[in-house]
């Protein structure tokens, strides 16, 4: 006889299901040989209802989980009869038009049967270092449509009745320049899915299938209730934001009008630029995944499960088909996660932060936007392929009561990390000169945004890095401050070519490109280049966080502390915060600080044009 879902059972089952996700994540970390998976944790796992609603996701890449539902729904709609869905099957997919966020985020989903009845699904996603296409890595430089990118794989049954189909595996791996790594990642996902299936089976054996099914339904309802309770405490209103993506000579504008009415939220992306003849677009699953991920980041607090299906009951998404945020076939998608997807992230985080800032009860929950211009370098050559993802060590946005966290990471990628520097040097043929928190990269404010990472490296043990694809965007900064806080600056990458690095290393430590001779080459938002034996690459990322509050309201003692810790320069202390620090004593000059702040206020009144529209 089935047991009813008591509150105690519900809590146990709910927490157990999230623990199952965590165990699946550990499985991926143990099996994968790719630093992207086992050190950066650029993956996620999820559990779904029999119809594909995602009710529990892991704490890693926030967008991977919500997108799973689209893949499962395609399988249920199109494949139920042919090739059929049976116990022991698994389906692979990296088609962005069927639910993969972009081609590199390869999905593997598995049905979970109990006594011949389909009761749930599980899924794993790992970012693959290379899935083919004209250029190495995730971005197909110069592609104008998906036909010129890595060929997407629609949902395909790759495991049939527990047996890996070698023909499909071969079809999948032959595309990749890093087939061994990608092949092992496939095994990692198989292992993770098997672990989730086993653990869900154990749960059903203990509690019974009816209790299990009612419990997962309750997780969705509980999430919906918790979100609606919070929204009812927030004033009704409309928040808007524009975010700009530069690609070549073009600017693509993302527009969000977010309306909170009663206990519901509407995200309206109408007005965004048309889809691009390029690699930067997003499909609807990607747009939805970013929106859901950001709602979970900003509104789940400590008490709401990571349950995308619950979020989707509370929000409505409106978009224009054919825009670059909801692109139609055959638009190019390969750069989605460092382009249009990131724009959606900025749009949502800015509107959600401002909405919480307008709410007395939740103002302490504000996180100013951060990491608005993610930039990735894809290195490729004989024996090595993969991205350098140090930009994930961004500074977080300031809160309404404290500073952002320096190199604290990305809030919606809660448990992701960067590759240990020694491990990176062992995996890639590179030698780092530094990886450090970079001063003046956090947005100024009463509370400062977290500073971000910068780093510099050269080829090592090889003659050159023959292919180096750098892709980001960010002519205009993205991480707007909140309540008068300043934005964080935009990233910049450059190479100094033909340096005297070998001689310089004999005489001391190299801390900057300025210490070297050679020719500086500034890199564009997306480019395929190379790095010769003495070419040194340097990256300053705008993965810093936006500030909170007027910088002139910051306690001078905190600014002094920032200067002493090399997080803010003396020049910015004076110019942005109005805090004058005596160079000799390294103390705040109170009199001059007071005068400087007054002069900045006067300057604002002098320079400011009084708007009297309306």
């Amino acid at each position, binding site marked *: 006889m089935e047991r009813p879902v008591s509150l105690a059972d519900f809590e146990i089952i709910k927490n157990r299901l999230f623990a199952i996700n965590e165990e699946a994540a550990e499985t991926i970390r143990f099996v994968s040989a790719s630093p992207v998976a086992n050190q950066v944790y650029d993956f996620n796992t999820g559990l779904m209802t029999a119809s594909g609603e995602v009710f529990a996701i892991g704490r890693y890449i926030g967008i991977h989980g919500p997108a799973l539902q689209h893949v499962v729904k395609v399988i249920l709609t199109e494949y139920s009869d042919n090739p059929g869905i049976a116990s022991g099957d698994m389906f692979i997919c990296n088609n962005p038009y069927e639910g993969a966020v972009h081609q590199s985020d390869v999905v593997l989903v598995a049905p979970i049967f109990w006594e011949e009845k389909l009761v749930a699904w599980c899924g794993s996603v790992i970012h693959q270092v290379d899935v083919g296409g004209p250029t190495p890595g995730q971005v197909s430089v110069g592609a104008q449509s998906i036909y010129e990118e890595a060929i997407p794989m629609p949902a395909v049954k790759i495991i049939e009745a527990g047996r890996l189909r070698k023909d499909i595996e071969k079809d999948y791996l032959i595309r990749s320049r890093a087939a061994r790594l990608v092949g092992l990642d496939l095994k990692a996902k198989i292992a993770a899915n098997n672990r989730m299936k086993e653990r869900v089976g154990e749960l059903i054996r203990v509690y019974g299938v009816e209790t299990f099914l009612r419990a997962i339904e309750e997780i969705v309802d509980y999430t919906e209730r918790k979100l609606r309770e919070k929204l009812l405490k927030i*004033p*009704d*209103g*409309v*928040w*808007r*934001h*524009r975010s*700009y993506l530069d690609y070549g000579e073009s*600017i693509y504008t993302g527009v969000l009008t977010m309306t909170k009415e009663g206990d519901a939220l509407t995200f309206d992306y109408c007005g965004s630029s048309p889809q691009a003849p390029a690699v930067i677009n997003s499909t609807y699953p990607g747009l939805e995944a970013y929106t859901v991920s950001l709602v979970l980041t900003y509104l789940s607090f400590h008490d709401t499960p990571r349950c995308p299906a619950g979020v989707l009951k509370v929000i409505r998404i409106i978009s224009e088909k054919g825009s670059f945020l909801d692109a139609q076939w055959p638009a190019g998608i390969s750069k989605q996660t460092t382009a249009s997807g990131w724009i959606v992230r900025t749009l949502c985080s800015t509107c959600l932060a*401002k909405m919480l*800032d*307008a*709410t*007395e009860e939740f*103002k302490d929950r504000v996180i100013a936007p951060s990491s608005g211009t993610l930039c990735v370098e894809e290195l490729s050559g004989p024996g090595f392929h993969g991205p350098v993802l140090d930009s994930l060590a961004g500074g977080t946005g300031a809160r*309404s009561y404290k500073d952002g966290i320096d190199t604290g990471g990305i809030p919606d990628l809660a448990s992701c990390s960067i590759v240990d520097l020694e491990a990176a040097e062992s995996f890639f043929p590179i030698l780092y000169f530094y990886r450090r928190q*970079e001063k*003046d*990269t956090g*947005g*100024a404010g*009463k509370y400062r945004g977290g500073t971000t990472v910068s780093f510099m490296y050269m080829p090592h043990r090889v003659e050159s890095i023959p292919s180096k694809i750098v892709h980001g965007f960010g*002519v*205009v*900064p993205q991480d*707007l*401050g*909140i*309540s*008068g*806080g*300043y*934005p*964080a*600056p*935009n990233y*910049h990458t450059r190479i100094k070519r033909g340096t005297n690095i070998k001689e310089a290393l004999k005489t001391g430590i190299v801390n900057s490109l300025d210490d070297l001779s050679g020719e500086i080459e*500034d890199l*564009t938002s997306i480019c395929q280049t190379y790095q010769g034996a003495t070419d040194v690459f340097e990256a*300053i990322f*705008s993965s810093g966080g936006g500030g*909170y*509050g*007027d910088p*002139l309201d910051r306690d001078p003692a905190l600014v002094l502390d920032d200067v002493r810790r090399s997080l803010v*320069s003396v020049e*910015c202390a004076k110019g*942005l915060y109005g805090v004058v620090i005596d160079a000799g004593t390294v103390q705040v000059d109170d009199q001059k600080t007071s005068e400087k702040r007054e002069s900045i*206020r*006067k300057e*604002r*009144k002098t*320079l*400011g*044009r*009084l*708007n009297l*529209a*309306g």
Partner: protein
Amino acid sequence: MRVNDYLAIVDRKGKHLIQCRCGYSICDANKNFKEHVLLIESPLKKIGPLADMSGKGTQFVFREFCCPNCAVLLTTEFALVGEAMLHDIELKQKPTGSQ
């Protein structure tokens, strides 16, 4: 009723106004307050020495909106040169009780 850390909507004898923390009344609550405060438009470099290192950001401006009375920085935005100000916060709920 709070708008952000410096702004609130207050009820002045039945009229809802956006007010700065210094007490300066900016405009009706249903208006875009940015259109009624000090506007300073600057190149992107204004936010710090690391901004716009590529020098390609000249088609954008950084806008600061300050209280005409106390000069506190109320909010900021980026925009293309000549682009209209964004009405980014539009609260529909109104405060109860007159002040």
